């Protein structure tokens, strides 16, 4: 083999070596690009899960508060009924005492 042929072989081999390195570099960039897409998907999925869970938390809180509000209404109604009953039972006595106060104070 002549010296020129040997140089040619070396040049070809170098070119082949560069292609191998370039392909690896391109593949690496592709890996990073895919990874970033995957990372963004992970983020979006986490946010979507969180938003769904947020809706559930808010809905549950609203339902619970409305149930407690309903209970408050029931308790209030009981208090109002007891006041009405007390009023019926004690009105005459209260009127009598009040008249007595105005007349005799």
């Amino acid at each position, binding site marked *: 083999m002549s010296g020129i042929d040997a140089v040619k072989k070396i040049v070809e081999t170098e070119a082949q070596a560069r292609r191998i390195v370039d392909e*690896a570099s391109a593949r690496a960039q592709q890996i990073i690009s895919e990874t970033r897409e995957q990372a963004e998907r992970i983020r979006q999925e986490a946010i979507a899960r969180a938003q769904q869970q947020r809706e559930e938390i808010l809905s549950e809180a609203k339902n619970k508060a409305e149930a407690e509000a309903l209970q408050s209404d029931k308790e209030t109604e009981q208090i109002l009924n007891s006041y009405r009953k007390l009023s019926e039972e004690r009105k005459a006595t209260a009127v009598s005492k009040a008249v007595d*106060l105005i007349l005799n104070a």
Partner: protein
Amino acid sequence: MSESLEKLQNRILSDAKHKADETIKDYQAKSQQILEEAKQRAQREFEEIIAKANVEAESIRRSILSSKVRVNRLRILDEKNRIVEDIIHSVEDQLSSISKSEQFEETAQRLVTEAVKAVDTDQPVVRIGFRDMSKRNLDEVSKVLPKGAKLVIDEKPIDNLGGVVATDPKGKVVFNNTFKSRLERLDNQLLTLISSTVFGE
């Protein structure tokens, strides 16, 4: 020559493959790190959203409940006020029709005596006016008036509910002893009395 060239070629290719492998390996490691960081960031964002949701949920709960509690407290207060007002109306009804009761003479005498004493003059002018007041009623009232007193009879009940107003002769000193005036003077005691009697408070 040919053998060493082949060795050189193999070496060049081997170096290139090694470099390529290293590059891929580096980027795979970098990729893993990116994914790991992304997962951690996603988890943090998730937790932040949930933490905010919990705060928001508590705020919604408090808002609903405090609004309801406020409305219900007002309903209870309104009902108590309604009951007290109803009782005060009954009291006013009884007071305005007192001339029909056996207590009238004694009450009228007491109102006149108090009013005369309050204006503290020898010649008090005493205005008296009750609903359905009779001549017989007035005879009894006259008995408690001092000698120089002047009795003025109103045909209508004074201040709607009836009562007595005494003044000095010039009208400068006035003592209002009508039922309406007594109700106003005794307002606090009256409300306390009614509340304690009806609600036990």
